[in-house]
């Protein structure tokens, strides 16, 4: 019998058997995302960038503790946490509204990991680590709005959806957190957080929607 056929419950936690399991951290889009051009030839109208290696924590106020949670966020980030659908840029984190009395903390490098946040929010909020539970896709380009309009009923016109606007919404029947980041090279940047297990499905839908405009696909470790 090969070692891989040993039932999990019989594996002892010491000795060599544990080492035979390999837990690779990889993106839920690892298989689907192919960097480079896609769709129509010529100048790409849509740019898709998957952001890797981020820390994402869900912060959710306990019963009757929303005020204390906001105060704890202020102490931690020196910024007012969002109480309406918007994304707030703090010095080294983005706080994104995700529902009433809750928000997401997006950051890098472990500074605001769930372990780092725990003490500050003790008693006021429940925290849940979402770092490996979501994929983060950044959408920009001349045709970004036209492409997103096929998937979303949110009005993304600049006069309505300005920098810092956010929405908890659905695209192609998939729940997403959508927000507009800082402009890059004079162009709007739309960020999408999608549940890991739905990411590949939504990715294919995004590619189908974007193909006619020409797409450039890449990775980044930088938060948009």
């Amino acid at each position: 019998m090969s070692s891989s056929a040993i039932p999990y419950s019989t594996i002892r936690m010491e000795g060599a058997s544990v080492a035979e399991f390999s837990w690779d951290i990889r993106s839920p889009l690892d298989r689907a995302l192919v960097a480079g051009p896609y769709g129509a030839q010529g100048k790409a109208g849509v740019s898709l960038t998957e952001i890797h290696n981020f820390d994402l924590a869900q912060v959710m106020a306990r019963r009757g503790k929303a005020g204390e949670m906001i105060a704890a966020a202020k102490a931690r980030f020196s910024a007012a946490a969002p109480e309406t659908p918007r994304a707030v840029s703090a010095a080294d984190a983005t706080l994104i509204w995700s529902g009433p009395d809750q928000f997401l903390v997006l950051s890098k490098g472990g500074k605001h990991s769930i372990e780092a946040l725990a003490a500050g929010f003790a008693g006021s909020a429940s925290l849940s680590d979402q770092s490996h539970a979501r994929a983060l896709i950044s959408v920009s380009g001349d045709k970004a709005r036209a492409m997103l309009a096929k998937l979303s009923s949110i009005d993304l016109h600049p006069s309505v959806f300005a920098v810092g606007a956010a929405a908890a919404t659905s695209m192609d029947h998939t729940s997403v957190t959508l927000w507009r980041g800082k402009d890059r090279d004079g162009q709007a940047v739309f960020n999408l957080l999608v549940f890991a297990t739905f990411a590949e499905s939504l990715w294919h839908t995004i590619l189908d929607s974007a193909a006619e405009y020409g797409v450039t696909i890449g990775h980044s470790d930088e938060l948009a």
Partner: protein
Amino acid sequence: MRITCPFCGERELGEFTYLGDAKPQRPAADAGEDAVYDYVYLRDNIAGVMSEHWYHGGGCRAWLKVTRNTLTHEISAVEAAAGAGAAKVGA
């Protein structure tokens, strides 16, 4: 049909799930079998203005109380259901 979520704003119907009548109140523990039966099983089939629970599952995941005319689909009020977010139930 669109519902204006008090947290998210106006959204398409596809983001919401219907639960049903928002009127029934859980009877007291000693209310008796008939009251519990009524609460669990019996519903009015209202042709007109009705108070309903809807779930914004495709958005902010809050429960809402929607006042809707079942004949015209006209929505006259939307509010957060008791206990939405960190609010105390009944607060």
